């Protein structure tokens, strides 16, 4: 490769810009398709089929939604506080997307002679940065509720800010316990501290790691995470039957979409953090030689299944689309066998699949659990989550101090 090009690409700013573009594109697309996946999954859980009209299996539905939201009339009610009304969705989406900057997706890689981390920025205080952003995220929602000048919105905003402040405590305390095991605040170092296996086959992820397995912290973190992202069963701020649509009642078109984007971005961030803190980040579930073969095998199995379904079409287009996707899957499986792509793709596969499983959990919970009452929600935060996480933190600290 041309050494000039290498040096230009190796420049810090240029490299960061390239990574930024890549991550932004992938993330935004992923957010859009997350919406599609959610609708599909919920539909199937509820014995429906979900979107099917736009594209095969509704695959182009996110694109259609985006176009619709962008071109819809941007309605600003007369009674709102205009400045904050406009500012609020911007803040929400800004802080939500900023969070992705410190998330590492994989280990150090070497592409075309350039060594870099699969991460936009490795901060010493990555976790604190995330906590700060999650704290700032409250403003978007609170301001949206307040500036709408509507009692439903206001109550939604108040509820959301109270809820987020309350659940930030157990969230932070749940984060603190794996930190004690890792001894760092940098997300990359935390993930790297979980490399390897115990007894040869148990991964040294935080939830398994001796001396203090963090299963309880993981559960606490996920519960608090549900509340932080205002997801069911903690979606009081937007409880339709009480508050219309809560803080975004008065919003329409792209501003409305911004809140959804923020919500899904927060979900992705949260699941990534959970993966990095508790589930070993990009480290595989199984030891060395096997881990590289699992992704192609899985993909080939998926591709084979799709082709099989294509041969017995249930609908008109299935006999074309299904084998096409099957072929893509088979090819993707082969990509994992190319030597110089393998060190990039295998960790990425493990990371993405863990995040995906957690995201599925979010959707699954939304489809199955009812909503809390507001006082139950707050009591749950202060009377259960908080003490339990404090005690857990103490126990972890004690175990680490005594046994490590």
């Amino acid at each position: 490769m041309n050494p000039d090009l290498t040096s230009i690409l190796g420049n810090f700013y240029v490299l960061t810009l390239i990574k930024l573009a890549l991550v932004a594109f992938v993330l935004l697309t992923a957010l859009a398709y997350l919406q599609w996946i959610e609708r599909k999954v919920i539909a199937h859980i509820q014995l429906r089929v979900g979107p099917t009209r736009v594209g095969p299996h509704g695959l182009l539905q996110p694109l259609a939604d985006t176009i619709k939201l962008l071109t819809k009339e941007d309605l600003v009610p007369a009674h709102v506080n205009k400045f904050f009304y406009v500012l609020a969705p911007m803040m929400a989406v800004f802080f939500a997307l900023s969070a992705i900057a410190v998330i590492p997706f994989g280990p150090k890689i070497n592409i075309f002679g350039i060594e870099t981390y699969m991460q936009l920025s490795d901060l010493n205080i990555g976790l604190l940065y995330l906590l700060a952003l999650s704290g700032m995220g409250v403003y978007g929602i609170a301001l949206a509720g307040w500036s709408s000048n509507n009692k439903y919105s206001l109550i939604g905003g108040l509820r959301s800010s109270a809820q987020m402040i309350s659940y930030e405590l157990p969230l932070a305390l749940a984060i603190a316990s794996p930190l004690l095991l890792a001894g760092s605040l940098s997300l990359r170092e935390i993930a790297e501290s979980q490399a390897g296996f115990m007894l040869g086959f148990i991964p040294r992820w935080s939830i398994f790691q001796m001396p203090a397995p963090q299963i309880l912290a993981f559960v606490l973190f996920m519960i608090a995470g549900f509340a932080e992202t205002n997801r069911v069963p903690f979606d009081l701020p937007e409880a339709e039957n009480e508050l219309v649509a809560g803080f975004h009642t008065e919003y329409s078109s792209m501003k409305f979409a911004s809140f959804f984007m923020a919500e899904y971005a927060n979900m992705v961030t949260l699941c990534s953090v959970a993966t990095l803190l508790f589930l070993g980040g990009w480290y595989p579930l199984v030891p060395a030689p096997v881990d590289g073969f699992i992704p192609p095998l899985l993909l080939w199995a998926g591709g084979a299944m799709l082709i099989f379904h294509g041969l017995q079409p249930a609908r008109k287009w299935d006999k074309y689309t299904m084998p096409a996707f099957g072929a893509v899957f088979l090819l993707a499986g082969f990509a994992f066998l190319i030597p110089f792509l393998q060190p990039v793709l295998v960790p990425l596969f493990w990371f993405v699949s863990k995040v995906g499983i957690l995201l599925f959990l979010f959707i699954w919970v939304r489809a199955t659990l009812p909503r809390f009452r507001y006082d139950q929600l707050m009591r749950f935060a202060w009377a259960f989550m908080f003490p339990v996480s404090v005690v857990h933190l103490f126990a972890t600290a004690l175990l680490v101090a005594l046994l490590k």
Partner: protein
Amino acid sequence: MDAILFFLFAAIAVVSAINVVVQRHPISSALSLVGVMGSLAVLYLLLGAEFIAAAQMIVYAGAIMVLFVFVIMLLNTGAEQSSRKGKVLTIVAMPLLVIFLGVVSYIIQRGFPDSPLVKFGEFTGGGPKDVGMALFTRYLLPFEVTSVLILIAIIGAVVLARKEME
């Protein structure tokens, strides 16, 4: 680069601070104050205070100011009305503040004629580890005392804010 960042965020801080003072509506002031705090956090980073920058955002901007916004929203008092007394005070106090600023700047210039140039990365002793070490060794007693202070504050806030028992 350091200078650009400093001037940029110093400007944001000063403009936001002015906004805090001149805005009629408390919520505007509060948001401006958050702006001040955010830009100060960036300046802290420039000065090598990583942990304090994060704490500034988490504690100040993320918790204390949210509490302010929360209370403002709860009371919803609306924009404040100006009063004649306030105008008199402004006329009297404004020159005082200007003098104050002038003298302080003079003293700073005189007192630190050869103050060091601030370069990012020159001082790296402000990470969580350094702060934690100092906090739990040399400053252990103040740290414990602040925990008592916070306990007292919690009790005070609860007592003040609870509904009157009949």
